[in-house]
């Protein structure tokens, strides 16, 4: 696997930005983990079961909640498509071929950013049309949504923690926009991947 450099080296410089004396949001780029897209055609829900079973997953899941099994996260992103994070292409290649399912390595294609802090939901409410209140977007929920006209996968990890999976080539622009929007809250950048 190639050595993937961060797209945010010039964007996320550790330090505090925005309102002084307040640190309502912390942003950090997460390490690059394997990411595989699994896609099929009609009858996908049934066809994909032999691919998921060895991973300990019993179904393709629903469109709103992440399935977790150990280090693996499974996101049902469309009726005939899902994302597996935390497992490499080689682990699902053979089962996919036998099941007539396409598996594609997207590990290089996403920048993953984590947001923590008391104002993260307020920040996201300014960026996306998804209702991120606790009641409608609880812990374990995910949504694909548009932020800054870019398709982003948004996941709630904790009440005050979110993960954003951003297309790599758009991530510098999007995170720069996110940082600007976060300034009124006060934001700290932590060390991430290099």
């Amino acid at each position: 696997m190639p050595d993937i450099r961060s797209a945010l080296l010039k964007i996320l410089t550790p330090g505090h930005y925005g309102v002084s004396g307040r640190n309502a949001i912390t942003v950090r780029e997460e390490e690059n983990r394997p990411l595989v897209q699994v896609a099929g055609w009609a009858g996908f829900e049934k066809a994909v079961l032999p691919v998921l079973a060895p991973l300990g997953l019993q179904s393709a899941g629903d469109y709103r909640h992440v399935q977790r099994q150990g280090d693996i996260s499974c996101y049902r992103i469309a009726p005939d498509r899902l994302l597996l994070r935390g497992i490499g292409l080689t682990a699902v290649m053979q089962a996919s071929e036998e099941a007539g399912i396409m598996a594609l390595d997207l590990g290089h294609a996403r920048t993953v950013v984590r947001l923590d802090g008391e104002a993260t939901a307020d920040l996201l409410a300014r960026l996306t049309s998804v209702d991120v209140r606790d009641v409608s977007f609880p812990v374990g929920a995910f949504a694909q949504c548009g932020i800054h006209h870019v398709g982003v996968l948004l996941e709630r990890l904790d009440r005050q923690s979110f993960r954003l999976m951003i297309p790599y080539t758009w991530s510098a622009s999007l995170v720069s926009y996110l940082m600007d929007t976060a300034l009124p809250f006060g934001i700290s950048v932590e060390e991430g991947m290099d």
Partner: protein
Amino acid sequence: MIRINCPVCGLRDETEFTYGGDANVKRPAMDEKDPKVWMDYVFNRSNPRGDHQEYWHHTQGCRQWVILERNTLDHTVGQCRLAKEVK
């Protein structure tokens, strides 16, 4: 702002979608010889005042094509279904 209830992603802003045209247009049979029929199919569209069915693509979400019922007069949005599930 129109809000579209995507069958996969739920209620989202129109800005996440791309308009895809009239969903009532039917492609002529491939052996159709009359050029007027093809011209109508390619270029001519009705401009209804009121309820309309149209294709939208959830470009920034699930990337599915949906068929949305929209009133062209007041932008009232009705049912939204996955295009591939509509016969």
